[in-house]
């Protein structure tokens, strides 16, 4: 635990693991247009935006999934230091696209990525950081939504429950009065995926791929039926469902087998 900051501004730090760093880039972008937020905190570590590296912080934002056993120690250190740990974006929140590799034998993916240097690098199945350390909250998305980032951080700073929607993308899509993609022969995971993105992909004609994770109690069987009826093969249905949610679906399978 850290000392209470002398100036009353909480110290925050950003960390990254296996990711494209696009969520941190979105953070930089958000802060540029929300100076009130920037003034309310003191950033002590943010590799993508500054040189200084302070190790005294209360709130840690972590982007990226954990894909190496060696990273666990660093995650534990962050957890030890921070009062609040926030998973930033789909990789940290869900495992995200990184977890697609979990569908293949580990040795194969390792050779594929590192070639003849494969033996030099450790790797294991990609997982959300919540599988390694306790996470207090997640800001979903690939990348995160810049407005949602601001809303959530403000809520954390004033001690309110962060307003992360638990209803599906369809709600936001309908309220925007978009033509439903199923009506024009396209496919979408909107009915079972968490909203908060303002239905950005369907709004621009692309079906939801689930980057914000499933809603609580998703009716996955009905979703599969709907996709199959719309013309997807079982393989295509699974390829769509696993794009961002491989880790969750595999965990679910393990749980079901355990019953």
């Amino acid at each position, binding site marked *: 635990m850290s000392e209470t900051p002398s100036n009353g501004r909480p110290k925050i730090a950003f960390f990254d693991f296996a990711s494209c760093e696009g969520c941190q880039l979105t953070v930089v972008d958000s802060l540029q247009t929300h100076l009130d937020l920037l003034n*309310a905190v003191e950033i002590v570590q943010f590799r993508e935006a500054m040189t200084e590296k302070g190790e005294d912080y209360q709130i840690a934002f972590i982007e990226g999934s954990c894909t190496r056993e060696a990273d666990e120690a660093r995650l534990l250190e962050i957890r030890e230091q921070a009062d609040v740990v926030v998973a930033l974006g789909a990789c940290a929140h869900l495992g995200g696209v990184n977890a697609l590799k979990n569908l293949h034998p580990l040795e194969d993916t390792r050779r594929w990525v590192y070639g003849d240097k494969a033996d030099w690098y450790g790797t294991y199945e990609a997982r959300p950081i919540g599988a390694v350390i306790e996470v207090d909250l997640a800001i979903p998305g690939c990348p995160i939504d810049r407005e949602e980032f601001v809303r959530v951080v403000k809520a954390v700073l004033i001690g309110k429950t962060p307003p992360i929607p638990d209803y599906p993308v369809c709600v936001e899509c309908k*309220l925007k009065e978009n033509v439903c993609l199923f009506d024009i022969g396209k496919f979408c995971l*909107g009915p079972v995926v968490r909203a908060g993105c303002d239905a950005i992909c369907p709004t621009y004609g692309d079906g939801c791929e689930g980057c914000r994770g499933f809603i609580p109690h998703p009716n996955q069987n009905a979703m599969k039926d709907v996709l199959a009826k719309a013309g997807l093969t079982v393989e295509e249905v699974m390829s769509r469902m696993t794009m961002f949610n491989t880790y969750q679906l595999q965990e679910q399978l393990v749980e079901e087998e355990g019953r």
Partner: protein
Amino acid sequence: MSLMVLNKGAVGPLIEALMADYRVVGPQAKGPQFAFGTLTDPAQMRLDYNTTILPPKKVLQPQQERLASYSLGGKPSVEQIIEATPTVLFGIHTCDLHAVQLLDKAFSEEYPDAHYLARRDQTILVSLECLEPCDEHSFCKSMGTLTAGEGYDLHLTDLGLAYAVDVATEAGAQILSDYGSASEAGDGDVRRLNDVLGAKWPRFTYRLEFDAAELPALLSTAYDHPLWQELGDRCLACGSCTNVCPTCYCFNVYDETNMALTEGERVRRWDSCQLDEFARVAGGENFREARAARQRHRFMRKGRYIFEKFGELGCVGCGRCIRACVADINIVDGFNAIQRSA
């Protein structure tokens, strides 16, 4: 009040003239479908539309609206926000007109809603007689909404080259005389109107296999019907059926405060009984946790509860919930199944 005739060529100029003083909202193309929107050009109006994605309720109860702003400084203050502009809602079908009448009751009885009522007060309704069903999902004839004798300011019926305009209110008469160029209907027009109205009925089919007036009684004994579980298994709980429903009016209220907690706004947004968290209360209990219970609630609202509260059925037969459901849940099939097993 009176019957007038408006040549089709005079509709554009009427809209254009109205646009100078009113927000004119009418049906417009949205991709291959239609949506009500504020017209910026009379040519955007598509009176040949079948149905719209969202019903016109969004004009009276927007998807999201601000209710009040407040400050919590040394002297706390609250200011109500009433956002209403003079509006002409043009070309709504009679199913939606019936729905507006129901919303009027919901927002004025018991707890009058200043926000809705201010908007409603500033809205002139110009409805349109349907001569063809929107599509195979329309069941307006079953629900008794295929025509309307009241509730509008002006009501248009397509006579071919002109519209017959039933002028029902002073406000309707005034916009027609101040902004339009309609003439009094002659005997020939009245005959033609009667012909058109008489000819349309066979084009619509009843889709309920029984009289809709039986719905409240039928549903009062259907609480434990196996249909609900079947629907619950198929339902994705996406909320689309209620979001597109012209009579659903549930909302949630949120506070949006600034960082310093010194000022904020209270906003409300459409909510849906089909969503997981809708019936969750403080302490964590969820009174309608199962999707089956939520679908049952929707059917009960449409066929029974609203009738018990307001004396009218909560469904106007527009068919939007059927079109919007990707899982093909069909309220007509549902009601018919219950009736058959009764």
